[in-house]
């Protein structure tokens, strides 16, 4: 079999049994997210709570994973959200090496079910699967756990593990592999509830492909002609001899004079990296200075990232001065918002210097990122930091009201007063401990709001300080600040933050707006892409553009590719008019599987997945009224910049009535009932989901 392995592994932690089953019945859902979502639908009854024994976790990767396409090693994990309203279906997407190891071990998916009576880990070496005792690992931090398991299973083993946060059932607990590669959504708490410490995978098998020569040709095409830098930014920050444009805000930061400053044997210059030169590709994204600022250059050993990815977006730093002063590990890597999130806002009002004057904020952020990853504590795209800040603002006004005095006094406030950056370590350890009231601030914003409703009212969930897309509890992630209604529409699809990068990769590409607009309008029609902070009312082109954003994301999470880089909407090449190629995903699918995949058939399969996910969400909500019960967005989106009206230049605020129009148009694009936003029987049947429609019908959950 080509692409897919055709097998999935089932591990039952209650009985200790393992079995291998065919995965073929899920191929209509591509793989990865699609496969995992359908398995969850088939096997976990609606109404199950995430920490119930009946709850399951499904790891899955698609047919393209393992076949070498650039950026093809992200794992999708599907399960029930621990931290958002309704505890509905939720996906986490984790980089690193887990997905390829699973494929090379021979599995398209791994289903973890039941609950062990004692701490265990699952060890997989190809066909050999064992459930092993993890008593000695329980309580260990994530990185020590990896080291201990690899001493037994082999140094090349990929270990996915929880830390203390997961063991303590913290709803914002994650799993991690290879140091800082994280999967969130609360999956860590589900692992903990099953007494499952880790999953250790080593695979020696092949991913068979129908046309290896075509795959190598596509790889060359993508790397030479289409792909830019992280988020597919196609314009460098500093003009290079070959470049027509420069744009200081992109992630193509590499340029002559900027180095990996702490590389062994002396700094390595990132240099020029023109399109067409594959062996310089990995120097385009000097992510350390993008995420941390100029101070990080001298601490940058190199850039790392996921298996198969040439972009390398993981800022891999070594900060020995920090370790000497605080004992926190000198070397760690992460990317994007996770880098330094806890040093933002006001958890620490001042920062003591560590190695040089003014470096305290950087050091505090780096320390907290490392500590959080070691604890297995998920930041939820900054939500945990926002919540903690909300409670400590105004001299801890709210915190004093929720914490018993003894617990409040146990927090080392003197360190905070002094700007001692280890305060953040103490605070995060207390949050992850599961002891006391403080830990409940990591329940997820919705559950925090419910728990302290009398104190918080409606303001907390709707505030700009929290920055949620909606009161459901998902963080806004490239929402209305990204292409107006288009970005925000991609957010409301999920039961967590949006995670959709299809649109922001376009708006952030670095190309001049007029050029972006002309390419996007050619595909989606006039008015699809507004100028930043100069928004216009909703229109059908925007609805099509938003649907494209979601569908491509599903394609990527299912086949597997990284939506943080894909699709190739634009290109860095002037001789292509900066136009990318949106047919490449289908070309990979055809080359890998030997089947006649086209852009249309791939879109259709991805839409099947979204229709299923929407139906599952309707079941979890228990009503067809998605417009008023699920797709509600936060007030701050309409109320920011009070001196400006929506659609005036200079603001990203939206208009309430226009938003309702946007929802209606979006529902129409997906064939959902335009009043409620619930999938109709006709639409579900169109995508081969008659059984899903029947099940909804039986519960009275089909729109009239």
């Amino acid at each position: 079999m080509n692409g897919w392995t055709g097998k999935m592994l089932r591990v039952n932690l209650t009985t200790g049994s393992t079995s291998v089953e065919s995965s073929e019945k899920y191929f209509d859902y591509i793989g990865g997210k699609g496969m995992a979502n359908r398995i969850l639908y088939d096997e976990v009854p609606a109404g199950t709570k995430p920490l119930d024994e009946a709850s399951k976790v499904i790891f899955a990767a698609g047919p393209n994973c393992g076949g070498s396409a650039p950026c093809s090693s992200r794992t999708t994990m599907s399960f029930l959200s621990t931290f958002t309203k309704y505890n509905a279906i939720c996906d986490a997407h984790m980089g690193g090496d887990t997905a390829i190891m699973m494929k090379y071990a021979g599995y398209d998916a791994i289903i973890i079910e039941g609950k062990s009576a004692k701490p265990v880990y699952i060890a997989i070496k190809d066909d050999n699967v064992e459930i092993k005792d993890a008593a000695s690992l329980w309580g260990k931090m994530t990185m020590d756990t990896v080291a201990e398991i690899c001493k037994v299973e082999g140094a090349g083993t990929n270990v996915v593990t929880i830390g203390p946060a997961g063991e303590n059932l913290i709803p914002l607990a994650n799993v991690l592999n290879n140091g800082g590669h994280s999967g969130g959504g609360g999956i860590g708490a589900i692992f903990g509830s099953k007494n499952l410490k880790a999953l250790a995978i080593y695979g020696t098998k092949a991913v068979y492909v129908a046309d290896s020569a075509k795959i190598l040709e596509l790889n060359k095409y993508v790397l030479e002609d289409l792909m830019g830098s992280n988020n597919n930014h196609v314009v460098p920050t500093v003009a290079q001899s070959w470049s027509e444009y420069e744009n200081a805000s992109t992630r193509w930061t590499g340029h002559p004079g900027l180095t990996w400053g702490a590389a062994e044997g002396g700094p390595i210059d990132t240099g020029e990296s023109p399109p067409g030169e594959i062996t310089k590709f990995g120097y385009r994204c000097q992510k350390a200075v993008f995420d941390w600022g100029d101070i990080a250059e001298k601490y940058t050993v190199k850039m790392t990232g996921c298996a198969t990815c040439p972009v390398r977006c993981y800022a891999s730093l070594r900060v020995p001065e920090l370790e000497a002063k605080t004992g926190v590990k000198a070397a760690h890597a992460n990317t994007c918002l996770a880098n330094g999130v806890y040093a933002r806002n006001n958890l620490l009002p001042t920062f003591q210097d560590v190695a040089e004057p003014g470096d305290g904020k950087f050091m505090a952020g780096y320390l907290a990122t490392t500590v959080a990853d070691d604890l297995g504590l998920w930041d939820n795209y900054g939500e945990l930091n926002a919540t903690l800040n909300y409670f400590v603002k105004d001299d801890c006004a709210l915190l004093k009201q929720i914490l018993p005095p003894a617990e409040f006094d146990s927090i080392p406030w003197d360190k905070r007063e002094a700007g001692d950056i280890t305060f953040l370590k103490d605070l995060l350890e207390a949050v992850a401990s599961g002891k006391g009231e403080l830990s409940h601030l990591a329940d997820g914003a919705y559950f925090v709001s419910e728990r302290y409703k009398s104190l918080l009212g409606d303001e907390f969930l709707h505030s700009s300080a929290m920055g949620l897309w909606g009161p459901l509890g998902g963080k806004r992630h490239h929402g209305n600040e990204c292409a107006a209604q288009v970005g925000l529409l991609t957010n409301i699809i999920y039961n967590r933050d949006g995670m959709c990068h299809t649109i922001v990769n376009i708006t952030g590409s670095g190309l001049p707006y007029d050029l972006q607009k002309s390419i996007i309008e050619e595909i989606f029609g006039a008015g699809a892409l507004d100028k930043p902070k100069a928004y216009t009312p909703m229109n059908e082109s925007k609805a099509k553009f938003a649907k494209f954003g979601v569908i491509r994301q599903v394609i990527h999470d299912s086949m597997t590719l990284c939506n943080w880089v894909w699709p190739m909407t634009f290109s860095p090449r002037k001789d292509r008019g900066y136009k990318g190629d949106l047919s490449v995903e289908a070309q990979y699918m055809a080359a890998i599987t030997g089947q006649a995949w086209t852009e249309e058939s791939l879109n259709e399969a991805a839409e099947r997945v979204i229709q299923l996910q929407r139906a599952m969400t309707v079941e979890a909500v228990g009503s067809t009224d998605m417009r008023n019960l699920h797709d509600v967005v936060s007030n701050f989106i309409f109320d920011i910049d009070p001196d400006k009206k929506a659609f005036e230049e200079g603001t990203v605020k939206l208009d309430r009535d226009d938003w309702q129009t946007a929802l209606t148009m979006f529902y129409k694009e997906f064939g959902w009932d335009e009043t409620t936003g619930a999938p109709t029987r006709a639409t579900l049947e169109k995508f081969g989901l008659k059984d899903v429609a029947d099940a909804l019908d039986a519960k009275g959950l089909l729109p009239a």
Partner: protein
Amino acid sequence: MSDEKKLGILEKEYSRRQFLKLSGKGLAGIPITAAMLTLFGCTQQQVEDGKVEAIATPTSLLVVNRAKCTGCQRCETNCTLTNDGKAQPWLSRLHVRDSVVFGATEVPADYMHGGGFLGEWDMGPETCKQCADPKCMSACPASAIAPDPNTGARVVDTEKCIGCGACEAACPWHMPKVDPDTKKSTKCITCGACAAGCPTGALSVIPWEDVVAAANA
């Protein structure tokens, strides 16, 4: 550079073709010049730290620079797609997957200060050394490994190979593997697919004439 020195490299290369380790003292006795460092894409310090490995092939020098390796493992999939028509990193003719987590194939006692993703990032592929006196070749009971008349690389004659695995066992680095599908040994043929697809040039193939020119600069 004198003709004598130039001849030194080539003689060592063609007559004995040994595994050349770059060191602070030079390459095969020839002092490292600034031009050679530029050509190899490394620093004198990296050479002195033993972080740069150079493997002589008949036509080129394969340079492995661990400071530039980012652990993406594209070399392994490119190798197997090119040579085996499938993606199977375990089978690859160079090995990096078993050392990307800790920088070595064993977990160091002080892993936090070791290499790889869990340490301080030192990592890099182990490649076939194209040994002057190849243990794989001498161990083969079927005489299936021999120099290719065109490239000089020691290659496996799949007609003769019996898939016994003696080559893998004999190789100090266990570089050859027996493909479980074909039951034939695989081994590096110096095709260069690994280096051509390395996104940071951590692997590079440098023609001998360029090495000699740089040594002479």
